[in-house]
């Protein structure tokens, strides 16, 4: 408390300190790791049920890449990766709600995959030269894999948007998913992205990253004569706040599936 009786807020950043100790840095990494975990788990659902064999393997190979990124990010925060990935309470997860959606319709998975991987390419880019050096190394490695993911997503999307059936089927899904995907650029509670930029953890603020991402998505959809509506149509009907620890209705089932083996045998090892 200061002498006005108000709680003191720590805003100053120790310039010589460890960038990982900048307030909010670890929460941001945790949020990105949780995104990757949920996306990886959800994409893995497609094993053996993809629309054709090659797509089956592609989605699940990308799933393993995303789980690898989750593992690398959790590894920046501690040694017990399983405990971080599987052992927390639902309100302790910071994933964006779009990553929790099951998307068991392939078109939904494709649209979410495109929105997520374009978003990732922007945010990994903003972290590639991070002053938190091990985070920068994870980001640079992930960027290399991201190029393959984007080639897969944009290759299919561009092709399908050249057909009437593709336009009729996919564009309404963008109306539904694009506003929700904006949550990927929300800051975790108590995380000041200005402070993270000032400390060199990130190259630019999350709002700036969101704008870059929206430009990329807008450009990709322009040939189909479509501009995504980014605003949430009805905030009451679709409460966001995944980064604040609020879980969507889909999280419980997703998490139960993730921990199914561990709950049978807590000492299980892969």
């Amino acid at each position: 408390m200061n002498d006005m009786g108000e709680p003191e807020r720590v805003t100053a950043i120790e310039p010589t300190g460890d960038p990982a100790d900048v307030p909010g840095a670890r929460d941001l990494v945790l949020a990105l790791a949780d995104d990757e975990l949920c996306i990886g788990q959800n994409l893995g659902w497609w094993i053996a049920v993809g629309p054709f064999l090659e797509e089956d393997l592609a989605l699940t190979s990308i799933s393993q890449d995303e789980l690898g990124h989750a593992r690398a990010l959790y590894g920046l925060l501690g040694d017990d990766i399983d405990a971080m990935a599987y052992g927390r309470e639902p309100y302790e997860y910071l994933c964006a709600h779009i990553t929790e959606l099951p998307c068991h319709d392939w078109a939904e998975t494709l649209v979410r995959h495109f929105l997520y991987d374009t978003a990732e390419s922007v945010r990994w880019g903003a972290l590639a030269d991070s002053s938190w050096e091990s985070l920068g190394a994870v980001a640079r490695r992930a960027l290399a894999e991201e190029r393959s993911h984007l080639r897969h997503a944009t290759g299919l999307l561009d092709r399908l948007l050249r057909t009437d059936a593709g336009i009729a089927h996919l564009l309404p899904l963008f109306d539904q998913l694009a506003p929700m995907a904006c949550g990927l650029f929300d800051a975790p509670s108590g995380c000041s992205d200005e402070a993270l930029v000032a400390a060199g953890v990130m190259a630019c603020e999350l709002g700036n990253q969101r704008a870059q991402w929206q430009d990329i998505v807008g450009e990709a959809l322009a040939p189909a004569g479509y501009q995504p509506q980014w605003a949430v149509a009805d905030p009451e009907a679709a409460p966001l706040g995944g980064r604040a620890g609020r879980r969507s209705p889909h999280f419980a089932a997703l998490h139960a599936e993730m921990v199914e083996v561990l709950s049978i045998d807590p000492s299980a090892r892969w």
Partner: protein
Amino acid sequence: MKTYEVFLKRAGKDPFAHVGALEAPDDDLALSFARDCYARRSEGEQMWVVAREDLLVADPTELQMADRAHRHNDGTFLRDLRQVGNAEPA
């Protein structure tokens, strides 16, 4: 969908080897699927993906060489000849 043939080359002196085929709607997606179907565990450090329709395919009848015994020399003729030669002075 078009059919593509996939070739991988491991690090070192191994040559490119055929690893399988896949179907894809276009060349870019063929490269994308080839990575996920055949190279996701670092099975190769270089990859060729070729549309099957672009392959030059030989006439199989030109490859039927099984009845040309003179191309399947197992060395016994020469061995027998030498043995005869060696035996002569005795």
